[in-house]
């Protein structure tokens, strides 16, 4: 029976990986069309104000920008499947080198922020649910409301002012030391933590009121075991979903945090590339993020199976 489940999960996993292909195709086509329609000529941006239209046209010809959209798109796909993601129009560097150089910075920050989020948000959500309608619950709800409402860049600047400038505890920018991770991670986590803890709280409230929890308590189960062993696991599904969505957002690069903390991540790279009409770079970033999001969503789906035996059983 267990082997059937594992085989079922493997087949599901492979199906989902295979689904990535039309997703990537669809997204790259959409981005290609959008970048083509957006005003702003990369050849003009490269050559500058003094170039005549003839010179711009000549460069466009050399860059093959005047080819029909579909021809350019299929040429891109052809190179893509051979591992060539193109060269940046502006930086004259391989897109793969540039994107893969920046992405690990975003992953590291996202990872630290996600750990902070989970380890702060989930306990807070549980406490708030257990202590519903008490002062503790109110305090937690106010904190989470602030977290959701506070603009992230403003929080970032406040943290820098207090902890970098006034106290000198952490650096205000960059990614070179382990201390550099603390403030941007707190900034990201504070906002995300609010959503996760509220979701955990509402999910727990629903679960705690279930009959089986009351039965467990009646049978002599300790309150601690009733909450953590019985209620919590059943309340995890929505929490995992929200964590997964937020992890996807973190991996997409929080542009505002990267801007405030001068974090060399993929968010800033994408904005710079869009502003520079650097289509190969934009596509490279988007394709990478599409793959990452899809794999992450798949991982979240697998987590459901780990947490909930009923879902696991569906794979057999």
């Amino acid at each position, binding site marked *: 029976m267990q082997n059937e489940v594992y085989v079922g999960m493997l087949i599901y996993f492979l199906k989902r990986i295979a689904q990535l292909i039309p997703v990537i195709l669809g997204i790259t086509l959409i981005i290609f069309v959008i970048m083509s329609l957006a005003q702003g000529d990369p050849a003009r941006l490269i*050559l500058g104000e003094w170039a*005549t239209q003839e010179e711009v046209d000549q460069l466009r010809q050399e860059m093959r920008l005047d080819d029909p959209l579909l021809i350019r798109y299929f040429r891109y796909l052809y190179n893509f499947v051979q591992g060539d993601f193109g060269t940046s129009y*502006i930086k004259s560097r391989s897109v793969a080198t540039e994107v893969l150089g920046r992405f690990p910075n975003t992953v590291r920050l996202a990872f630290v922020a996600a750990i902070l989020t989970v380890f702060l948000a989930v306990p807070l959500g549980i406490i708030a649910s257990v202590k519903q309608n008490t002062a503790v619950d109110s305090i937690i709800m106010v904190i989470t409301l602030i977290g959701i409402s506070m603009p992230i860049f403003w929080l970032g600047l406040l943290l820098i002012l207090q902890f970098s*400038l006034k106290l000198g505890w952490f650096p205000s*920018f960059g990614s*070179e*030391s382990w201390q550099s991770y603390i403030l941007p991670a707190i900034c990201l986590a504070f906002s995300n933590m609010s959503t996760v803890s509220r979701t955990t709280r509402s999910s727990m409230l629903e679960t705690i009121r279930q009959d089986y929890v009351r039965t467990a308590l009646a049978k002599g189960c300790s309150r601690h075991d009733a909450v953590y062993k019985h209620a919590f696991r059943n309340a995890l599904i929505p929490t995992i979903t929200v964590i997964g969505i937020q992890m996807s957002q973190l991996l997409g690069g929080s542009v505002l945090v990267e801007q*405030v903390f001068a974090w060399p991540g993929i968010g800033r790279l994408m904005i710079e590339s869009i502003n520079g009409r650097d289509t190969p770079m934009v596509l490279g970033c988007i394709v990478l993020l599409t793959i990452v999001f899809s794999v992450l969503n798949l991982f979240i789906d697998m987590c459901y199976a780990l947490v909930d035996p009923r879902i696991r059983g569906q794979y057999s």
Partner: protein
Amino acid sequence: MKRLLFCVCCIAILFASGLFVVDKSYAANAKDTLTIAMMSEPASMSTVNNESMDPIYSGYLTHNFLMKNDPKTLEPVPDLAESYELLSDTEHVFKLRKGVKFHHGKEFKAEDVVATINYNKTFPGCKPYVGAIKSVEAIDDYTVKFIMDKPYPNLLNDLTFKVNFIQAADLIKKGHNFDNEPIGTGPFKLVEWKRGSTIRYERFNDYFNKDEVTNIKTIIWKVIPEGTSRTIALEAGEVDMVFQVETADIGRLKKNEKVAVEEIIEVANYAMGINNDLPPFNDVNLRQAIAHAIDRESIVIGALNSYGVPNFTSCAQNYWGSTTEGACTYDPIKAKEYLSKWGGDPSNVKLSIICWNPMLVRVGTIVQGSLEENLGIKVELEEVDSATFSSRRASGQYRAFFTYWSPSNSFSYVTRYHSDKRSSVPGACNDPKVDEYVDALRNTVPADLRLELTHKIIARVNEIAAQPSLFQPYTFRAYDRKLAGAQFTPHGYAYFHTCYWK
């Protein structure tokens, strides 16, 4: 709950004890290092194939010119050239310094100058600065002759400008990647580039000008896009200098005893480019009305926090040769007179102005108010990014836009009013008299005659209000007071390598 409270208390005690505080290796206070906070990094280190300023800042560290700008007088002075002689109206001879080395070991010779100029001629963006050069010849290893098409007065200034950093002939020949690996004769060489983060330069020990060698061996650029973050980094001691200071932070920095703030009036002259071809803006009376109706003082106060000077004339005020003759001062009465001369209905004028950054939106808001109040013209502001602006300007799809110029001198400035500019900016100035004066200026060498022609061009452009000037902003640079020797130019460049720790 109790366990959680216990953990929180432990963490708080640990923070308070400073356990997390010990390592300050990120702080910038090594005395042989200069750490500079920059707003952005170059997309490419080459200055010939892009219009960005960032590669120029880097180029001042890694390269030299044949002639360079004196940061105080803005006049060209020898750099890699030892001396200069005008053989005839069209022949300029430069004697080159001996014993100068490139970072890769090659000795600098005349062939490098020849190769650089010929290489630059292949890039459209270099046209204003090498277009007048017919040919360059190496007379011997240390003598080079420039032959111009016609008598041309601005060669020395052109050679001081960004595109004319001298490259090595052997590198040009083998198609070296100057975009990512700059190699020059400059006082510092690029040793590490972490994209989006830092650029590190180390002193070039074989640099020819020993007078410029200071106690700084390493220069690090830290890329910090957010202005307030740059300021805080300086205040916290994490960087030694902020090159682009956020306007909102200037007051605070000036009060900081550990920080020196330098204020420079830029030569960058912000103006409103009006489409001179598009009705009704092709009527000079309407353009004059608009030019006289804009309250430039309010722009400086409202949009720039008073960090700038209003400009009413069609050239930056701090250039040699600039004049206020015929300047379009703020005069609502005169504006109404010109409007009457135009004779149209101002409520039918559809004026949209392209603003391509937030500061220009603030400027535009004040221009909007001025024109509505004084002329009854309703202005629409179009907020776009710089790529869209560039495209629309090049295709003539605009009624007006805000722009700025900051070329090397008044010659380079006023010659842009020639109608040949319209091949890249449709709708730009198109006046036969301006063309006549500019054509004459391009071939006039004596200084007194050039001065007269420059005045004529500016006065005429003022008269036709082709591109009303608005203001020149201040630029601020801030740095640790223990630092000295920094030289900042009104063009917006800097000689970082002359800095030293006191």
